[in-house]
C-alpha cells in the first residue's frame, strides 16, 4: 500500500508536469499523459498488469511497470532534448539581433 501511494504521487507529478508542457510540446505531453495514466492504473490494479503482461509476452506485471517507467524516462529525455533546441533558438534570435545591431560596411557614409 505504501509503495502504491508513493508511486501514485510520483505518477501524479508526471501528469501535472506533462499538462504544463502541453502548450510547448503537445505530442510529448500527450504521450506522457497516456503512459503515466497507464502507470497509475497498473499500480492500483497489479493483477491487470500481470494479465496484460502475459498477453504481450512479458513475464510479470512488475516487469511491465518497470518497462513503463523506462518509457517515461525516454520520453522525458526527448522532452529535454526539445527544450535544449528551444533554448538554442532563443540564443540564435538574441545573437542575430546583436549581429544586426553591429553591421559593418566599408562605405564611409553608412
Amino acid at each position: 500500500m505504501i509503495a502504491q501511494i508513493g508511486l501514485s504521487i510520483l505518477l501524479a507529478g508526471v501528469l501535472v508536469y506533462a499538462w504544463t508542457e502541453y502548450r510547448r510540446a503537445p505530442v510529448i505531453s500527450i504521450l506522457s499523459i497516456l503512459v503515466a495514466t497507464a502507470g497509475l492504473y497498473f499500480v492500483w490494479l497489479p493483477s491487470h498488469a500481470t494479465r496484460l503482461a502475459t498477453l504481450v509476452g512479458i513475464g510479470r506485471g512488475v516487469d511491465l511497470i518497470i518497462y513503463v517507467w523506462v518509457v517515461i524516462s525516454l520520453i522525458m529525455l526527448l522532452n529535454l532534448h526539445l527544450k535544449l533546441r528551444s533554448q538554442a533558438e532563443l540564443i540564435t534570435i538574441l545573437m542575430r539581433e546583436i549581429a544586426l545591431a553591429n553591421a559593418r560596411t566599408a562605405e564611409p557614409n553608412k
Partner: protein
Amino acid sequence: MTSKHRKKPDKQSIWIAVAAFNEAAVLSPIVSDLVRRSYRVVVVDDGSHDATGQIAISAGATVVTHPVNLGQGAALQTGIKLALQQGADYVVTFDADGQHRPSDIARLIDALVDHDADYALGSRFLGSSRGMPLGRRLLLQAATWLTRVMTGLRLTDTHNGLRAMTREGAGRIALRQNRMAHASEILEQIAASGLRHIEVPVTIDYTQYSLAKGQRFSDSLAILFDLSAQKLHR
C-alpha cells in the same frame, strides 16, 4: 528570358545574402564580382576563425558577424533580415564557396518579374553542373523525392542554395533550422506561403573546394532528425 514589357528592377534594390564560415580563401573574388555588378551584398560571417569578415568588407560587402558559429540556416536568416531592414525589393541567397555563378542572378530576378512569382529557385538539373560526382547526384535526387512527399512542391532540385525572392516572399521566410535542414525548411515555408514559385536553370561549378565543404550521406540523416524534432515542439 528577358522582360521587355516590364520595368527591370533597380540593381541597388537587389540584396545578395551570402552565409560564410571560414571562407577567407575564396570569398574575395566572389564578393567583388557581385559588387561590380552593382548588387548590394551582405555577408554574414558566421563566427569564422579566419579573416572572412574583414575580406568581405574590403571587397565591398556589408558584414554582419555572428559572435559564434550558428550554422548556414541561421546565417541566411540573418542576411535576409538585414536585407529587408535595408529596404531590399529582392533578396537572393548565394553560396560563398564559389559554386554559383553571379551571372545567374539576373536570370532569377528576370524570372520573378516575368512570371510574377515571389520565389525563383535555381535548379542544376534544369541547367547544368560540372564535375558532379555520382554519389552527390543520387543523394540530391533522393532529397528531391523526399521534399516532394513532404511539401508537395514538384521541384527538380531541392538543395540549391541559389534562390531569389521578392520582398514579400522573403518576409514569409522565418528559418528555425540553424544548420543544414534549413534547405528543406525553406521549401516547407514556400509551400505554406501559398505564393508563386518558379524554377530557373542555373549552372553549378563543382570544385575540389566546394565538394569538400558539401554534404555527405551522414549529414542527410542528421537533417531528417532535425526536421522531425522540430515538428514536436514550438
